[in-house]
């Protein structure tokens, strides 16, 4: 997807007013960094915003960190390619996972006061499990930051005519400055601002796209006539042996939802870090749940315009000199948004790319400093020392991301393969967390063996699929079943490893396993029902069921 925008001459022709809006926004971005600079006094301020932010801020940051390059353009592209089935990634994938994180897992993350996701593994299992997670996370973050940076620069080059190299350095400098100045607080504040700007840009675009295609009813009838009903009805054709491109219902529920989405949303430190920045345990639990509400509507402004683009932009995705699926959103913007609004929408798009990269950099520096430098290389120094290391890690991380972006610009396949490689770690990691949290008997080396064997299984299934030994409906379908296999093998090895080893003592497990959570005053206190994580969590699940039903009612 990454080079999509470069291959055709889609230029947005911004008016001076649009450019002024973009410049104003980016002065705000830097302004936030400078304003927050004096608040950064300790490593905890820098890496976890001093655990001081209210739930609505961390909640918006939580989803905004994920609305980056791949997500925004990628999901609209998948909407155009696969149709309505892409909503599964949200309504049965991300949202239940976010609710689960908030209700079930957050007390362990926040209550134990771990400062990163890998740190939990060190306390619950052993340094082997910790290192495998910390190292893959650090490498994966840099890679994804680089890919995000490259994608952003390609958009800058294609839409605004800025040369690629200049675009890469310019965007990297922006991200570097505001994280260096304000740390995680700066990153989260920018994510909140970016969220509102992207909404202001995307909502009208979607409404106009639907209006131009004759309303959602007419759009769905047209698409259904051309591509079959599975294209507009997400559950149609999901039986075993059916035709839905996303796969069968077992794969969707067990693979996509339980393994893949739970794996990503509950163990990815770039996300969980936002919740750890919340001011108390109750706010931390609310973080992903508050984020889940706007997240439920994100497919309506990404997948839906992608589907509308099939009607509005004839020839899209058909190859040759035509537009590619990834260009659906920018092309719709160019076609329908008048000056002023176009400036706001492009600002949102650029901000989204930048936030994606910033999220990776700000979680990279925390894991590098706390989990690698402090734990294994230079332990026991004063806090100021680690704050400085964190700042240098930020510089180093951005420089490496720039190099990755430059490499990606000449060998984009390598970065695709590497991204696939790192994705293999997700599901076994989730397996280790969930078993570690809920099965007291899981012993110290169980985490390492679960992650290792699970990852190898995911790689094996992928290799067999690529060699043609196993066959699936699509790459997505393979990913789902590969995840199920990885989870199962990981779980079995964890059980075996635990049975041959002595269990950890209750004292060692305090605050880390089910039944021994540490709750602070905010969690024990009485809250109004509309502030209860459980009520809000169930509410968003009901909302998603209703959204599914409404797709069929159109």
């Amino acid at each position, binding site marked *: 997807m990454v080079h999509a925008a470069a291959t055709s001459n889609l230029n947005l022709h911004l008016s001076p*007013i649009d450019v*002024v*809006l973009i410049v*104003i*926004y980016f002065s*705000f971005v830097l*302004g936030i960094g400078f*304003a*927050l600079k*004096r*608040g950064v*006094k*300790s*490593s*905890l*301020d820098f890496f976890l915003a*001093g*655990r*001081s932010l209210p739930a609505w*801020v961390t909640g918006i940051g939580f989803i905004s960190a994920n609305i980056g390059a791949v997500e925004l353009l990628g999901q609209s592209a998948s909407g155009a390619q696969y149709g309505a089935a892409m909503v599964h990634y949200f309504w049965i994938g991300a949202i239940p996972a976010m609710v689960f994180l908030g209700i079930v897992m957050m007390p362990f993350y926040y209550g*134990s*006061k*771990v*400062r990163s996701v890998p740190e939990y593994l060190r*306390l619950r299992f052993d340094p082997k499990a910790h290192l495998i997670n910390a190292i893959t996370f650090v490498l994966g973050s840099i890679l994804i930051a680089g890919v995000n940076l490259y994608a952003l620069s390609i958009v800058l080059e294609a839409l605004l005519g800025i040369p690629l190299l200049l675009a890469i350095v310019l965007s990297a400098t922006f991200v570097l400055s505001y994280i260096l100045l304000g740390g995680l607080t700066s990153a989260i*504040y920018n994510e*909140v*601002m970016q969220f*509102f*700007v992207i909404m*202001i840009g995307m909502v*009208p675009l979607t409404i*106009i796209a639907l209006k*131009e295609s004759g309303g959602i009813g007419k759009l769905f009838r047209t698409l259904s006539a051309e591509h079959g009903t599975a294209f507009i009805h997400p559950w149609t054709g999901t039986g075993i042996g059916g035709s839905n491109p996303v796969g069968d219902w077992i794969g969707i529920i067990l693979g996509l939802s339980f393994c893949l989405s739970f794996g990503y949303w509950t163990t990815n430190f770039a996300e969980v870090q936002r919740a750890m920045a919340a*001011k*108390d345990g*109750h706010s931390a639990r609310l973080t992903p749940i508050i984020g889940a509400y706007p997240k439920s509507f994100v497919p309506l402004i990404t997948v839906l315009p992608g589907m509308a683009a099939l009607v509005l932009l004839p020839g899209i995705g058909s190859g040759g000199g035509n537009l590619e699926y990834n260009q659906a959103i920018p092309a719709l913007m160019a*076609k*329908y*948004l*008048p*000056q*002023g*609004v176009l*400036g*706001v929408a492009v600002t949102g798009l650029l901000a989204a790319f930048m936030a994606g990269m910033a999220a990776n950099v700000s979680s990279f520096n925390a894991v590098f400093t706390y989990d690698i430098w*402090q*734990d294994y290389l230079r*332990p*026991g120094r004063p*806090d*100021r020392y*680690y704050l400085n290391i964190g700042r240098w890690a930020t510089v180093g991380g951005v420089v490496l991301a720039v190099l990755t972006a430059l490499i990606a610009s000449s060998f984009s396949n390598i970065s695709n393969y590497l991204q696939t490689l790192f994705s293999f770690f997700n599901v076994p990691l989730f397996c280790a967390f969930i078993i570690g949290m809920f099965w007291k008997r899981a012993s110290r080396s169980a985490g390492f063996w679960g992650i290792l064997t699970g990852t190898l299984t995911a790689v094996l299934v992928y290799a067999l699929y690529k060699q043609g030994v196993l066959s699936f409906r699509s790459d997505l379908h393979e990913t789902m079943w590969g995840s199920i296999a990885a989870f199962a093998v990981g779980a079995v090895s964890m059980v075996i490893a635990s049975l041959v080893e002595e269990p950890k003592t209750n*004292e*060692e497990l*305090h*605050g880390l396993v089910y039944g021994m959570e*540490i709750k*602070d005053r*905010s969690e024990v206190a009485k809250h109004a029902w509309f502030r209860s994580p459980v009520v809000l969590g169930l509410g968003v699940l009901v909302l998603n069921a209703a959204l599914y039903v409404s797709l069929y009612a159109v």
Partner: protein
Amino acid sequence: MTTPEERPGERATDPLALLFDIRAFTGSLFLIFGIIVTIVGLNASDADIKKAAGVNLSLIIGLVMLVTGVVFVVWLLVSPPEILHSHEMTEEELPEQLRHHGLEAIPEHHGEAPPPSPPTTRRRRKGEH
């Protein structure tokens, strides 16, 4: 632990607290964006309106952003930032193996005694070695 008094821009009585709140940034951004885009909308040509499916999109979005900006500013004034860390748990309340042994403390802070942290203390679980 960081005490609220030590954190500039976070006390309710601190005038900077209002300026450094995210609602101040977002509110002022949307007020500026709103004013600019509303003016563009007021001067929209027929071609602009025709481009956006027959609606004066700039005017509508400009006004929406103005209202959003006002909402953020009013919200900020009605409920100024609280003193944070009200529910913060101190390291001493944590069980031994979860404590970071003063590594989160900030010796640079005035008026806050640095907790005892012998440089040799590693943040390790008991009995790991």
